[in-house]
């Protein structure tokens, strides 16, 4: 069985970093670099006609914010997993990206092998998560309990007991392997829990936006047809 080759697109304005990531990708047998951009506009027009399996993107770009592309791709190319390049992986930035449709992040100072491994893992169903993000996720999903009636997605539906347990253990500092052992499941299961959570969060934040929009009277026509 031959392992699949993943097409990667890179969007990073800093030349050194871009070169570093390009080298990391080139060095891995399962990855191939489809395109590499230093500006948002060029990347957006490329994606208008092309597709990829993974997008590696910086956020602060000379001609705009990376979130714009993340939102576009999350809508149009569900097959493309998006990873954000971050120096610190601080929870607020990462969560904003996840809510827009990203599946995780890569540290700028990661070692070459780690960079490639994160990409391959993501394609294999994993999602990078830090304890701080897990804690924020728990807070955010649990804070939704008093949901307005019109809200389609309910908080308790968002978080299954198993997922909640996984998040709590991650927030306490346990590694995936340790959680798998503690719960008697495979590491792959634990990872897919995280990825599910991420996509739920993105969907949830979109439905929240719909709710907000309808509340502001933007979707009156939609409501009339209900």
């Amino acid at each position, binding site marked *: 069985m031959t392992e699949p080759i993943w097409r990667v697109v890179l969007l990073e304005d800093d030349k050194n970093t871009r070169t570093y990531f390009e080298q990391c990708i080139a060095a891995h047998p399962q990855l191939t670099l489809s395109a590499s951009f230093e500006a948002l506009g060029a990347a957006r027009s490329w994606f208008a006609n092309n597709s990829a399996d993974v997008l590696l993107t910086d956020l602060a770009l000379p001609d705009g914010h990376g979130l714009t592309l993340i939102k576009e791709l999350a809508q149009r190319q569900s097959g493309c997993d998006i990873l954000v390049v971050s120096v610190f992986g601080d929870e607020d930035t990462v969560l904003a990206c996840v809510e827009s449709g990203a599946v995780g992040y890569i540290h700028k100072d*990661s070692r070459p092998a780690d960079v490639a491994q994160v990409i391959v893992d993501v394609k294999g169903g994993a999602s990078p998560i830090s*304890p*701080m993000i897990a*804690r924020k996720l728990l807070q955010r999903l649990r804070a939704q309990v008093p949901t307005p009636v019109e809200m389609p997605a309910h908080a308790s539906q968002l978080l299954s007991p198993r997922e909640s347990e996984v998040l709590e253990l991650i927030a306490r*500092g346990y*590694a995936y392997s340790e959680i798998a052992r503690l719960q008697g499941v495979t590491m792959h299961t634990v990872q897919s829990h995280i990825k599910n959570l991420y996509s739920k969060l993105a969907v949830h934040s979109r439905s929240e936006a719909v709710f907000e929009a309808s509340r502001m009277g933007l979707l009156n026509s939609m409501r009339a047809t209900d």
Partner: protein
Amino acid sequence: MQSGRRLVAYGMIALLCTAAFLGSSCTSRKESGSRVVLLTSASVTAISGGVSQPSAAISLPFHWDVEYPARSGHAEILLRFARPPASSDAKAPYMFFITRIASAYTLTLNETVIASAGVLHENGDRWSAKQPVGVTFPASLLKDENELLIKVRGDAGRRSGVAPILLGPAQEVEPLRARAYALRVGLTMAASLFSLLVASFCLLLWLQQRERLYLWACIGEVIWALVVADVVLEWTPLQWPAWGLALLMIRIVWVWALYIIIEQVFGLRPRRERFAMKVIAASVPFVIAATALMNTPLPVQVWRSVASIFMTIVMVRLFISLRSSFTVERLLLVSGIAILLLAGIHDAFSSSLFSSGFGDSVWAKYVGAVLGLTIMWIVSNRFRHARTEAAQLQASLEQRVEQKEIELRESFTRLSEAERSRAVIAERERILRDMHDGVGANLATAMRQLESGTAPASDVAATLRESLDHLKLSIDAMNLPTGDVNALLASLRYRLQPRIESAGLQVFWSVDELPTWPNSSDITMRHLQFLLLEAFSNVLQHASASSLTLGAHVADGRIELTLSDNGCGFDAGAKALRSMRERANAIGATLSVENAEPGTRVRVLL
């Protein structure tokens, strides 16, 4: 403006005076119909104090107090008169009409008793005989020569006596009687009711604003209503002279109330005058005692005269003071009292001291209404002013509250700005300290390593990596919930994971769900983070260990953190250890570092 008001006030007073005069002239007017005769010639025989006085010819009115001052007794008054002019109807009844006959009496016409009232032989009985008397009798009782015998009891000081008598056909006398009745009884009742009305008005105002003036105006008017009502009272609640003395008692309260009203309007009176007023009021019990002991109304009369003179003096002084400090209110009050005083003097002369006025109506009871009106005007005026002032006060108070609110808001803004800048300074200090202890130190080391030219690139990279870790931990620390040791441990492991892995260390993680660390703050959290980082770094850099165990549990209500490795032990004198001890002291934690053969065990008890 001032002169205009003055004019209005004088005009009002002139009007009131005219009204009072007209009223009084109405009461004294007597109309004689063509067939009505006035009987005045009489002979009187009196028994006073058991001594019979010789018979004497008099002309009515007969006034006991004038004829026999300070004595009690009986009088028999005999009137002889010819047959009065015949009525058109021979059988039509006739009528005697007497404006006043007091106290107890019996009327005998040609040896037939035609009227009687009270108990003739009981001195001072409760019958007070204040109302006009009309006696109707059949025409058949009249002869050509007639004798009307009036027996009447005289009580000292009670204004006993007999007024001139009108005789005529009942149908002609009755209208005169009815008219006199309406004037004396009806008007008096009206005056009394009016005083009660003013009293209740003042009481209502007093209930809203506890002003001394309103209360005393109310008390004064209630007493006045009672005193006026007494004028038409046929049966008194007490016998004479007890009832007279009781009236005197409440009258002095009335004078007192009036004096207080004067003080409220004119300001505090001079000390001597107030003293005199107090003496006059306080002397009332002695006057009463003297009256009872001596059985003579003389003390009361003396006292009344003194009080009247005193009030007259006060009035004059008030009038004089008006010239320097005029207000409409003052003029009205002093005029009202002066008119009443004049009426009182008139009453005293006309109906108490001389016979001629006996039976005439007293003026004071009507004129009292003028004073009542004046007081009502003053009180309502005061009330209106007080309300206006209260409204203004309220408005200015609201304005002040608003002003204060604005000031408070401004000072609050200033304070919160100061608080913010203080917080910014504190945060800046914290970041600087972090930079100095962490990244700064690491960067300096990396610089030295590069400059020395001897350090391998991997060492420099390790130093720089460490500095990045410091930076990431600093950022994590900003987001750490205060007191959440679980989050602190998790972030530490997450950030150090790459170094732990590259060092080939196996981690045994045994972290319970920990309670919130009590009394912690951002600063203590930061100290604990640095302390643990130091412990981890020590294992990573110096211990040459292959496994590391972190335990976090609750023991005896305290959070216990243990970090054990299987390496080569700890250098007790190391700079790192000193720094760890300092931080443990700063956060009030117990730190112990033991050689565990093999390895080291660091224990932190929070």
